[in-house]
């Protein structure tokens, strides 16, 4: 029998650690973004062509982690989950931090639309018969308006979930839990629709001739997996820094590990489902997208994903042992976040330089991609640290907190 832990005797606040993280995140953000700008201006001299693509890639990466955290928060409320209460505030912080940041980050993206999407090019629009019936949906105004709407909806949902939960720390009102549960149900529908269409608009329309109805689910699987991996890393990190050292136990890591493992399989299942239907039907406008990724150099990235994004974590996390070793699980978390980034890289970059920018085509990898990962990642760290610093790291007066503190896997 596990003894109940007294959370109020624990260090549940980031305090100066959070402030330091905000400063470091901002410094990394400015340095990374500045270096990316300088590199694309001075070395590549391609009028920010690659910069725009790297920006899209890393925007999709940062936002995916926030969306995954939003999804997991909603699911905990809808299922009235008891086990997860001690880690839920971390998810709420990641969602609120990155998704409010996305409201700002989306603005430069709107300006970059003409550099990213060939459907935005007036000549292509006039001449391309395959685009003719998509012109209303894929127009500069329509896509911009939708992108802004998506990020506003996400930020509003994430902020409301975070604020309501934090308000309960003060009032201890169990009605707030019921309200969170009630509203999470319809929010999940909104989440599913907005994520699906955002993935269509942001990523799938890079090759506007191509289409895959499962594409939204594919992007979602990366969101859910990436944010669960991030949660393992984040929980391990705050505990290493002496915060909530007793409230999160091996039992919680075990469950985080199970969900991570489950979504490793889910990602592979969806990726293969998408591949196999296209491979089997063998229709020209569908296969082109896959064939690009089966030729050098992209075939190597594809193989890295098959083995590194599926087989390695599948075999590595299959057993009970690694899931109950917080350090091992956190290491897998870092590894899976890297794989998730490569997965998005694989979605975005094979389309770079294919349409109308012949002079700027290739290379398949640029240092700008990583510089902007540091840049946007740094801003995201600062935004999340800001949310986490503003409240306790655990929902102190959640009615299910005792259940979570004494939780054990059978």
């Amino acid at each position, binding site marked *: *029998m*596990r003894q109940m832990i007294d959370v109020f005797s624990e260090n549940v606040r980031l305090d100066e650690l959070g402030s330091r993280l905000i400063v470091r995140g901002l410094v990394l953000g400015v340095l990374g973004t500045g270096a990316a700008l300088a590199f694309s201006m001075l070395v590549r001299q391609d009028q920010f062509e690659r910069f725009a693509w790297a920006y899209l890639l890393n925007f999709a990466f940062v936002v995916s982690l926030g969306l995954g955290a939003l999804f997991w928060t909603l699911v905990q409320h809808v299922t009235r989950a008891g086990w997860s209460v001690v880690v839920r505030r971390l998810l709420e912080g990641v969602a609120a931090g990155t998704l409010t940041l996305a409201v700002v980050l989306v603005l430069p993206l709107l300006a970059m639309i003409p550099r990213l999407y060939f459907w935005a090019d007036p000549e292509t629009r006039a001449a391309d018969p395959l685009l003719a019936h998509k012109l209303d949906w894929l127009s500069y105004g329509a896509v911009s308006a939708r992108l802004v709407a998506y990020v506003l909806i996400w930020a509003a949902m994430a902020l409301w979930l975070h604020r309501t939960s934090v308000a309960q720390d003060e009032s201890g009102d169990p009605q707030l839990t019921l309200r969170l549960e009630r509203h999470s149900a319809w929010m999940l529908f909104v989440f599913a629709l907005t994520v699906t269409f955002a993935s269509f608009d942001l990523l799938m329309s890079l090759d506007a001739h191509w289409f895959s109805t499962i594409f939204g689910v594919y992007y979602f699987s990366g969101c859910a997996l990436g944010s669960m991996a991030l949660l393992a890393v984040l929980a391990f990190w705050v505990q290493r820094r002496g915060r909530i050292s007793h409230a999160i136990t091996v039992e919680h890591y075990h469950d985080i590990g199970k969900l991570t493992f489950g979504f490793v399989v889910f990602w592979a299942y969806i990726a*293969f489902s998408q*591949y*196999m239907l296209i*491979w089997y039907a*063998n229709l020209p406008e569908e296969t082109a997208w896959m064939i690009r990724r089966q030729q050098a150099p992209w075939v190597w990235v594809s193989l890295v994903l098959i083995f590194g994004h599926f087989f390695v974590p599948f075999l590595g996390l*299959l057993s*009970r042992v690694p899931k109950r070793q917080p350090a091992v699980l956190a290491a897998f978390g870092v590894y899976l976040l890297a794989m998730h980034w490569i997965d998005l890289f694989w979605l975005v970059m094979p389309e770079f330089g294919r349409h109308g920018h012949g002079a700027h085509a290739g290379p398949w990898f640029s240092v700008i991609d990583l510089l902007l990962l540091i840049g946007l990642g740094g801003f995201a760290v600062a935004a999340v640290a800001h949310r986490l610093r503003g409240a306790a790291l655990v929902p102190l007066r959640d009615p299910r907190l005792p259940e979570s503190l004494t939780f054990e896997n*059978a």
Partner: protein
Amino acid sequence: MGGQRRLWGLYVRLDEVPELIDAAEVVRDAGYTRWDCHTPFPVHGLNEAMGLRLTRLPLVVFAAGAVGAIAGLAMQWWMNAVDYPLIISGKPFFSLPANIPIVFEMTILFAAITAFVGMLAFNGLPRHHHPLFAVDEFRAATDDKFFIVIEADDPRFDENAARQLLGRFGEVREVWE
């Protein structure tokens, strides 16, 4: 009923979970191996108190899953590429993407059946009868009482020693074959 009745084991009845945990630790430390706790609901921490090892079932299931995957692949290779080659949608006779769903299903099938049968094999179920069922009082094990039973065929079983050990926790009673 005539004939000889042979002692099957000794049991003691307990009322509370903490008593059960304490008693289980004592029986564990006394070195018994053929003994068990019966509770009306799952008791966290009892595994450790009883000193139960983790089951080896996962290893067997993993092996069965691997065998299923290989069998699924080999079956399709034999059927499609060797025994009865048919051109389907212009694809190669032996083409991995088309085979993966079957490989997946065979992996699950072998692993799931092995998990189910292996679980029954390891825990010795199903069985039609158990000597404890003859004890009226044992019905409370599904209601609100806890039982610790030491079987007479435990290699370390000595009736007097076992009586003394269990006697520390309550009144010791016999179970007959």
